[in-house]
């Protein structure tokens, strides 16, 4: 059994000192991680596109991220004249704080996180909802039509995809019987939960891409459509706050996903080989996850907004509900674990089959777009 006593009480001097030291470690690790994630993304994407990526600053361009950070801090911080002053200036912080609050509960190694919460999974759901507010503040406060459009798109997309994301995690929580992330990781000593719930993992991965505004769901920040989305008016340090929160959110989400679905610090042999191996496991899994995200980004073209919405509401949401009902029946009637993985596996194959079928189907039905473009006919989703 894991030790639940670390950081349990709410008040007390040494408790606060402990919390502040832990948060400092997390913040420093996050900053280094974000700097090298931007570098890594440029390198990986460049390889996918048969380019070299950054090579000049430092050996193999390794100092490029630091040079970029220095440049961004030094740039002038411009506020448009018709921007809503306080809303505009607080928006980057309102976007970043929820991401930092998510990092607070992640167990990076056995019993090592900033705080260990009994309701960890539920806390993540609660904090995810806060993220939209900062983006809407940026969109509304900039006094720019493109930022406003980006904000609307981001909010609509994030609200929609939050539902399948939360439902897919709930179906895992039904099996774990706890919401504590440390215990969830500890339970996966023999096999990770992706074996029991492959469908939930596929839904989680898709919804995660959408929550992070990564391609093919990068509609809110599409440069070719709305010149960059909700942070179009930001520059210098505030723009880099948005960039920081985007990459930090990617890191937090991947660590979270690797804890829930891949066994986090536990699988394989995490309990036996000490904290170094546990940390290596967590970071290795999250980096693999991140490379998968970049791979998807360079492979799949951007979706249209109606395709995005119909994919969420007509495919992901029903499948995640079906998975929850199937899990409930199996668990209540004392079914074996292989039954869970069988039903979920069938669901995962069905989801992949639906996607492939839709990709290759020649659509005969057409539909009108909404609003001013109603007379335009496009293939029906």
């Amino acid at each position, binding site marked *: 059994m894991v030790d639940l006593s670390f950081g349990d009480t709410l008040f007390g001097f040494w408790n606060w000192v402990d919390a502040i030291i832990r948060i400092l470690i997390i913040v420093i690790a996050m900053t280094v991680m974000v700097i090298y994630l931007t570098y890594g993304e440029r390198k990986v994407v460049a390889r996918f596109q048969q380019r070299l990526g950054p090579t000049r600053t430092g050996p193999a361009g390794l100092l490029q991220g630091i040079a970029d950070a220095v440049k961004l801090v030094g740039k002038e911080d411009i506020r448009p004249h018709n921007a809503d002053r306080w*809303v505009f200036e607080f928006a980057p912080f309102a976007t970043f704080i929820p991401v930092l609050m998510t990092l607070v509960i992640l167990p990076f190694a056995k019993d090592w996180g900033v705080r260990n919460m009994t309701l960890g999974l539920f806390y993540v759901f609660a*904090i995810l909802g*806060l993220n939209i507010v900062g983006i809407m503040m940026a969109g509304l406060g900039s006094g720019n039509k493109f930022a406003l459009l980006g904000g609307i798109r981001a909010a609509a997309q994030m609200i929609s995809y939050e539902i399948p994301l939360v439902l897919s995690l709930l179906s895992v929580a039904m099996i774990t019987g706890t919401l504590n992330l440390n215990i969830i990781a500890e339970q996966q000593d023999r096999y990770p939960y992706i074996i029991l719930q492959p469908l939930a993992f596929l839904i989680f991965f898709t919804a995660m891409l959408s929550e992070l505004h990564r391609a093919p769901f990068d509609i809110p920040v599409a440069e070719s459509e709305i010149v960059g989305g909700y942070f179009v008016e930001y520059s210098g340090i505030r723009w880099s706050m948005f960039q920081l929160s985007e990459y930090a959110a990617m890191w937090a989400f991947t660590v979270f996903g690797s804890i829930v679905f891949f066994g986090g610090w536990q699988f394989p042999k995490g309990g036996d080989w000490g904290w170094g191996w546990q940390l290596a496991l967590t970071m290795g899994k999250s980096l693999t996850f991140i490379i998968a995200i970049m791979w998807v980004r360079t492979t799949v073209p951007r979706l249209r907004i109606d395709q995005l919405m119909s994919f969420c509401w007509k495919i992901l949401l029903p499948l995640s509900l079906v998975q929850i009902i199937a899990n409930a029946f199996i668990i209540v009637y004392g079914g074996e674990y292989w039954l869970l993985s069988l039903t979920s596996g069938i669901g995962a194959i069905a989801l992949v089959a639906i996607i492939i079928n839709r990709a290759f189907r020649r659509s005969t039905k057409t539909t009108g777009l909404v609003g001013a473009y109603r007379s335009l006919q496009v293939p029906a989703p």
Partner: protein
Amino acid sequence: MHGAGPNLAFWVLAALTLVSAGGVMVSRNLLHAVLFLIVSFLGVAGFFILLSAPFLGMAQIIIYVGAIAVLVLFAILLTPRAGRDNGETRWAAPGVLLSIALMAVLLFVITDTKWTTAKDAPEITAADLGQALLSTWVLPFEIASVLLTAALIGSIMLVRSPEEEAEDALQ
């Protein structure tokens, strides 16, 4: 919990909640009012956590900040005249009267209740709440879900355009 920490936290949260609730009233910009409302909701969530009810605190954040406040933000985004001044209105006097009446009722209830402090509050987990919701309170729970489904279907019917109605009639 006793001691300086909880007291300090109580007063900070109270100040945060009340000041931002005041901000909702006095700010002349609708967007600012909603943002103050969000801060006020967060303060209330902090109270729940201070009262050893973290589940309720997080539910407060999910429902009020994540859903209701974002819904209001959406309404502002999609309202053409949302940028107008939120100042004087003909309804100021009735509004004041209504809030005085509400305050009177609340004060009556507050002074009339016998407040006692529990010695050791039992630890109520999320599992206990779920058990209660699906056994003792299953009927209100189901009625709430029927209400929400009706609201969903109703909103879908409201936003259907006349052209879509005509298309469906043809099929």
